[in-house]
């Protein structure tokens, strides 16, 4: 073996000083990346990936795939967090806005306004299902209401309708969905939670609820359901969360 002392500090032709300099550059790059949003140039690629993921997610979707609560899972009860974008809990004030009614319109043969009593007269279902939040938590709750598909049949949706927009009186909160997810058997327009009438904290008088979508897609404080030929974004989707938001 040669006894040239350089053997000990030369790493593959890179001397120790260069080696440390490179180490410094790499470490600095790491520190700069910490807690950052990443390079601006990547945002186009990320949007592209989101659009492609949407195609994959829609291809994976099956109407027969049902959410089933794990045996032994407890109900969340009052541990279900309450979220809204208004400063205070949105409450429908009848003295100001008149009687609440759900407007179902857009690409339909029979646009309709349904009062809470009208909704309650439609076939009633109660689904004990998981709530999947975008944040990563789940909560088991029983949602009572009418199937969205029943509502769609009632207004006779046109075949051109490929998307649905769920709008609310919680400021300008809304989220649009693909038709398939909306027509899923577990998607309901809910007015009851855990055997009681829905409270303002969770979207009274009525909200859309489905385990096939993440929480933020399930618009609370419903005012309008609009059938559309094109998607219409949504409150959180426009801020950068995935539009599809499916489970």
């Amino acid at each position, binding site marked *: 073996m040669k006894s040239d002392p350089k053997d000990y500090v030369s790493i*593959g032709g890179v001397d120790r000083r260069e080696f440390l300099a490179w180490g410094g550059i790499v470490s600095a790059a790491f520190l700069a990346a*910490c807690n950052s949003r990443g390079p601006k140039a990547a945002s186009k*690629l990320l949007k592209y990936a989101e659009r492609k993921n949407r195609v994959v997610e829609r291809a*994976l979707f099956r109407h027969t795939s*049902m959410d089933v609560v*794990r045996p032994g*899972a407890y109900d969340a009860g009052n541990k279900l967090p309450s979220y809204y974008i208004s400063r205070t809990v949105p409450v429908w004030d009848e003295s100001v806005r008149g009687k609440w009614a759900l407007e179902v319109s857009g690409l339909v043969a029979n646009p309709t306004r349904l009062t809470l009593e009208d909704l309650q007269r439609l076939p009633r279902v109660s689904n004990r299902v998981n709530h999947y939040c975008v944040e990563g938590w789940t909560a088991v709750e029983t949602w009572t209401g009418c199937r969205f598909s029943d509502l769609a049949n009632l207004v006779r949706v046109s075949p051109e309708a490929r998307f649905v927009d769920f709008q609310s009186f919680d400021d300008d909160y809304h989220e649009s969905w693909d038709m398939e997810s909306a027509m899923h058997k577990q998607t309901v327009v809910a007015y009851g939670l855990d055997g009681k009438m829905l409270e303002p904290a969770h979207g009274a008088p009525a909200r859309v609820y489905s385990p096939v979508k993440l929480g933020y897609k399930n618009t609370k404080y419903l005012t309008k359901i609009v059938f559309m030929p094109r998607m219409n974004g949504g409150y959180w989707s426009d801020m950068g*969360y995935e539009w599809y938001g499916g*489970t």
Partner: protein
Amino acid sequence: MEKKRHHWIVRVTHWVNFVAIVIMVGSGLRIFNAYPAFARRGEVFCCYPFEHKPIPAWLTFGGWLGGARNWHFAMMWVLVVNGLIYLAFVYLHGEWRDLVPRKGDIRDSWQMVKFYAFKRKDHPHQGKHNALQKTAYFVLPVAGALAVASGIAIWKPVQLSWLTNLLGGYVWARYWHFMAMLVIVILSVIHVFMVFAVDPYSIPSMITGNYDEKNSPEARNARPFYHLFPRRRQAQSPPEPT
């Protein structure tokens, strides 16, 4: 021309994997911080001691939940495709022979531990990798597969509920996803430490493919940071004939 230590496919997939893992772990931890716990609402979780304690922000990437999710769901394809290319190559090109566990690996690993602990003088004889390395490079893709499977399970808990149920449901799938990440991070940190401490010559070999066996840890009888020790260590090698 001498034979390359690492095929170019291995070199490319190694560095793509490095970038993908760093971004997946960073963005994953940012997503985790939106709800740094495993318990279903209204329940307690048995098996994680730091429930509701967020990961330090400087370990995260993506800036906010939506941004981190976008990175995570984009980079997952890079990780999976890259991983499949690597595994297919390793299988088809025979490199798997250097990596699969064999009888005697436990004994050889123990000898490596003894060597590093100065309980054994000479570096155990090895093939391309020592027994501890081999174990790490075998476990890493296994943990990667678990990370991918559990990741799909929490991405599509309703549409692919069979997978989620296989892992014990959403809560547990999320837990296995976290644990797989932890295994990958721990192995990667040890890997990087050992590369710098024991075999820095392997860094250029993972870029250019060239590696001089004279510099192998076995040839140098290298314990951690041996190459930075003063030259008096030479005295330990048998005296040369005069």
